[in-house]
């Protein structure tokens, strides 16, 4: 059911709430707590929200977002008892525009992970093949939409956490320009990279969300947020798309072939293809992980068992020992790994070496991307250099390999540009997303152009 044309019915709302409790993919958490309350909200909602643009649309929300009164854990035992005292701006805006909240979706712990498998609350299965991962860190939001459990979902994208699960699950995932959506109410992972994003079935659904003004105004409570302004686009009859020949040469054969096939298809539609280069893209993952882990180690410093987290036992008498015990007990392995890496990068010996260099390279990479974008309407490339992996195969991947698999998405996070993954490809039946990347603040135009070109294809 498209967001644009939804006819509201109480039955649909009740059905989607019940789907969260029978959900076979591990896409929803806290259902037992939430479902009864949400059911009781249906009637008042039906009476009050009639004139809103998202009337009757059900919405899943990643458990990273504060929704007042709901358990909000960020997938971590550290926050397993935490109830959100307020609602994040993005969610409040969507609810004010009529979106009906049906549940909290599953994720990797503190948004750190690529396969929705780092949280100790359980992993998320890919709806079209439950032997495979739904991706991460917004796996739950993607699985909920792909599995038909909800009309659309909100996720967060720091290095690809909305785009990659969209690619794995065969749906659309959109990450706006950094600052276009307020971060107020998002449990922070890497502050200069985090952005709320949307998981939907179609590009038109993302287009509709932008049309109704979700990104229009900046939020005074988020000093890094920016006014993107009211929805405005101009019609184009002809499009120029940038592509990366370097990737055609270096990607795994099947992925490269699929990339070529989509490009050929567009070309035959009359799209002009322009080859571009982003030399630093091959190093994007290194740059990303240095910066993201550094910011993460800072943002997670507050979890010490005093204000958040539970006490393990009687105090050892030494504050630092107590804190160590709380953090090593209630943080999962991946989170601990990234905190340690980040602390190392930020130490006085390394800061001027690794971190300073990463910051410089980030600027250089952003310039390369801007330059590439100046030659075209938008760039197009595969979202991930793989299809949804099997759980068995994930067991054999090293952390380093997993980090490197993000390199196609992280570069655009670093540059703060908008990007949308559209399920245009497939390999032996497994969906492969193509990522379309636009210039900063040109979110509306990017989505419009992608919609125009892919009309009928998705």
């Amino acid at each position, binding site marked *: 059911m498209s967001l644009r044309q939804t006819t509201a019915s109480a039955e649909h709302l009740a059905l989607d709430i019940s789907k969260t409790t029978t959900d076979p993919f591990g896409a929803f958490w806290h259902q037992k707590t939430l479902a009864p309350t949400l059911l009781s909200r249906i009637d008042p909602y039906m009476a009050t929200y009639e004139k809103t643009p998202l009337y009757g649309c059900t919405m899943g929300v990643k458990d990273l977002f504060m929704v007042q009164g709901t358990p909000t854990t960020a997938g971590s035992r550290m926050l397993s008892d935490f109830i959100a005292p307020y609602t994040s701006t993005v969610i409040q805006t969507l609810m004010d525009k009529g979106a009906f909240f049906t549940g909290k979706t599953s994720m990797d712990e503190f948004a750190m992970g690529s396969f929705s498998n780092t949280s100790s609350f359980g992993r998320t299965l890919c709806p079209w093949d439950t032997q495979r991962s739904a991706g991460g860190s917004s796996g739950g939001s993607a699985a909920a939409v792909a599995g038909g459990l909800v009309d659309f979902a909100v996720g967060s994208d720091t290095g690809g956490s909305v785009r990659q699960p969209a690619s794995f699950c065969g749906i659309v995932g959109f990450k706006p320009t950094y600052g276009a959506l307020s971060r107020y109410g998002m449990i*922070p992972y890497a502050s*200069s990279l985090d952005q709320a994003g949307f998981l939907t079935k179609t590009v038109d659904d993302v287009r509709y969300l932008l049309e109704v003004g979700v990104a229009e105004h900046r939020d005074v*409570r988020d*000093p890094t947020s920016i006014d993107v302004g009211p929805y405005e686009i101009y019609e184009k009859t002809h499009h120029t798309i940038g592509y990366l020949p370097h990737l055609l040469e270096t990607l795994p054969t099947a992925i490269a072939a699929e990339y070529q096939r989509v490009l050929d298809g567009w070309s035959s539609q009359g799209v002009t293809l322009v080859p571009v280069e982003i030399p630093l893209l091959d190093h994007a993952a290194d740059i990303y992980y240095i910066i993201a882990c550094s910011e993460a180690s*800072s943002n997670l410093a507050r*979890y010490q068992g*005093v204000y958040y987290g539970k006490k393990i036992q009687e105090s050892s008498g030494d504050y630092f020992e107590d*804190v160590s015990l709380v953090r090593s007990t209630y943080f999962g392995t991946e989170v601990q790994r990234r905190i340690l890496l980040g602390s190392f990068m*930020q130490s006085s010996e390394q800061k001027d070496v690794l971190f300073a260099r990463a910051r410089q390279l980030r600027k250089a990479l952003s310039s390369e991307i801007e330059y590439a974008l100046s030659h075209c309407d938008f760039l197009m490339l595969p979202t991930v250099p793989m299809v949804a992996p099997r759980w068995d195969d994930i067991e054999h991947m090293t952390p380093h390999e997993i980090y490197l698999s993000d390199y196609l998405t992280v570069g655009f996070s670093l540059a703060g540009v908008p990007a949308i993954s559209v399920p245009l490809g497939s390999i032996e039946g497994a969906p492969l997303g193509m990522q379309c990347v636009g210039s900063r603040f040109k979110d509306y135009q990017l989505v419009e152009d992608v919609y125009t070109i892919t009309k009928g294809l998705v």
Partner: protein
Amino acid sequence: MKKFGDYYVTIGLEIHVALATSKKLFSTTPNTFQSDTLTWFDIGVPGVLPVLEREPVEMAVAFGLATQSDIRHVSYFERKHYFYPDLPLGYQITQQEDPILWGGSVPIRLDGVDKTIAIEHSHLECDAAKSVHDASDDYTLIDVSRVASPLLEIVSRPCMHSPEEAVEYAKAVHRLVVALGICDGKLQEGSFRVDASISLSKDPSRLGTRVECKNISSFSFLKAALMHEITRQSDILDDGSSVVMETRLFDETHGVTRSMRSKETVAEYRYMRDPDIPALVIDETFISDVQQRYATDFFDFREHLIAHVSQRGLILSEGQIELLCAYPRDVLLGGFTSTDVYWKTLAYWLPDLKARFPEARSLTLEQLQTLGSMDASASKTMLTTYISSETPWNECQPMTSLDPQWVAVIHEVLQTHPEQCDKMRHGDEKMKHFLMGQCMKRLKKHATPALILPYLV
């Protein structure tokens, strides 16, 4: 340079000024220590972001203008990380590489000699919570009312060479921040905290090992701590040993400094520019707006004031000068064209009376000018009456003559007491007192003995 035994002493001070803003540095929580309202930012609720308030920045700029510091048009905030229960975020928001103020100086006068003490830099930062150890047997409690309050940290150059110099500098900074209205100056409440660093060296061109002293809550304790350190370090160096670079706490009860429980390694704060806070940009409009609203010419004006009153022949102590400078600017300016009585009121009589009657009403500029226009004794009488009682201002005016109706009453009293009058006229003092009493009984507050007396003799 003064020598202490064989040694030259070098001192630097870090002063933390609690800014008297209405709200905290990055949130709209009211900035009072008694506040029982918190916003989520103060206790680090995830997802809440720091939003910089304007007032603390204004106050920092005011300080910068008054000390002729270089006010940076672009400065940044950084996170200083360490784990401690008094730091809810696990990091303090401060400025390190790119603070808002660079340089600047503070003039002092010591033993009649003028000197300028140089400031290294000053920056804005958040205060921490306060650990309370003695409220419970089993727990240390954390008082979070203070956390994230705005502080201005003023770091001097290590350019002071005696405890007296350091104390004069600290007092000068204290005077300034109180006069600017950016700090209430209450040392005992922690509004103005001084950390001192001191090193000794036989060679004046080289610095010795630096020792930092914390927990100093008054100017006399500052002097005591530094004197103690000089003795302690001299003894160590005389013995041929080395001074350990460390932080020591001042023990008020015993007047000595004590080593803190040692940390083997230098603290690793992992300073990182705060990604949530955009660059702090200050333009010329902002600066001139501050210049107009704050008394940033404090040091110059103070010199001008002191020169003016000494020209009038008024001898004022340091304490009296401080009290004088604490008056509002328009009150002091009013004095330049007024009389000696005006200054004596401000500098001597009013402070004395205020000390005895702390709850008394304040005077307006007009009232002060009225007092200034009278002769000394009349002025003092009127002032005393007003401060020490609830009498309305108009009725405090000392009487200079009696209304005819009251004169008539006196005559009536005399006429009804012919025998006593007669005896009085023949020199009987007792009768004079008796008749005075009778008159006062009838006239009450409408006359004073001095005004009645002429009619009796």
